[in-house]
């Protein structure tokens, strides 16, 4: 019976260890700030394009994506945990959050652009600020999802 107790204890220990691993998956301060700045740039684009109509989206979007990749690389190094790329279809657990992240970004940018075209600047600024707050909250939710995933484990335990 000692072996059985030991096997049960092993499984319990593994749960504790996975929980410890999940707790290591935290954003460093620079990641949170970087993410906020990145979203601020994204939501500022409709305003910039209004004052400089010649500006194209690509010179703006590509550096933003490069910074995002760099931040992801830094996060992997800081936490010591590399989680795979999450697209809109996989894994299913965080799908609503990831869809919401994309929907809020696109929705906010298009709403801002439409308001700016009608010269309604203040509501456009409010939309941009709200979208930034919503994106940060959604990113936190996505991180919580990853932590839950690590805690739950990929196996039967």
């Amino acid at each position, binding site marked *: 019976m000692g072996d*059985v107790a030991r096997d049960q204890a092993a499984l319990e220990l593994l749960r504790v260890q996975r929980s410890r691993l999940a707790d290591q998956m935290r954003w460093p301060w620079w990641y949170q700030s970087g993410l906020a700045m990145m979203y601020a740039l994204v939501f500022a684009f409709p305003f910039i394009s209004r004052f400089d109509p010649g500006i194209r989206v690509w010179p703006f979007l590509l550096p933003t994506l490069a910074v995002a990749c760099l931040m992801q690389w830094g996060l992997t190094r800081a936490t010591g945990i590399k989680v795979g790329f999450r697209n809109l279809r996989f894994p299913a657990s965080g799908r609503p959050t990831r869809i919401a992240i994309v929907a809020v970004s696109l929705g906010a940018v298009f709403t801002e652009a439409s308001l700016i075209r009608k010269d309604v600047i203040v509501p456009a600024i409010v939309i941009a600020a709200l979208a930034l707050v919503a994106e940060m909250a959604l990113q936190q939710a996505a991180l919580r999802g990853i932590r839950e995933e690590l805690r739950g484990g990929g196996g039967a335990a």
Partner: protein
Amino acid sequence: MTAKLDPLIHPITRLSICGLLAAGADWIEFAALRDAAGISDSVLSKQSRVLEDAGYVEVRKGAIGRRPRTWFRLTPEGRQAVEGHLAWLAQLEEAVSASARDLQQARSLPDDRDQPHDRDEPRHVLPPLLGSS
């Protein structure tokens, strides 16, 4: 996936390493794995080499500046073995708790001496590999 005991993964340290690598991350760095498992550097080095030799774990070594960094991940073969082993452990745990539940139920029944006593015996039988760990 078949639930089966894997003697290579069964020792607690190797189970911890493999179980953490199977938790959902692609790669885990040496220090993060060591801290989560609560083991020493030398134990992790030794046990990861055993797992690497068995083809269960892939090791990638690199450096950032002068600091060496070692990353681990499960191979597909290792993942299959870990999932099978964890499923076996989960079955074992389920069987043990079911037996304990049955025993508790049998004890809580009124003491009826006219009834046959085989009711006190647990209905669930533990997996046959119990004693081999």
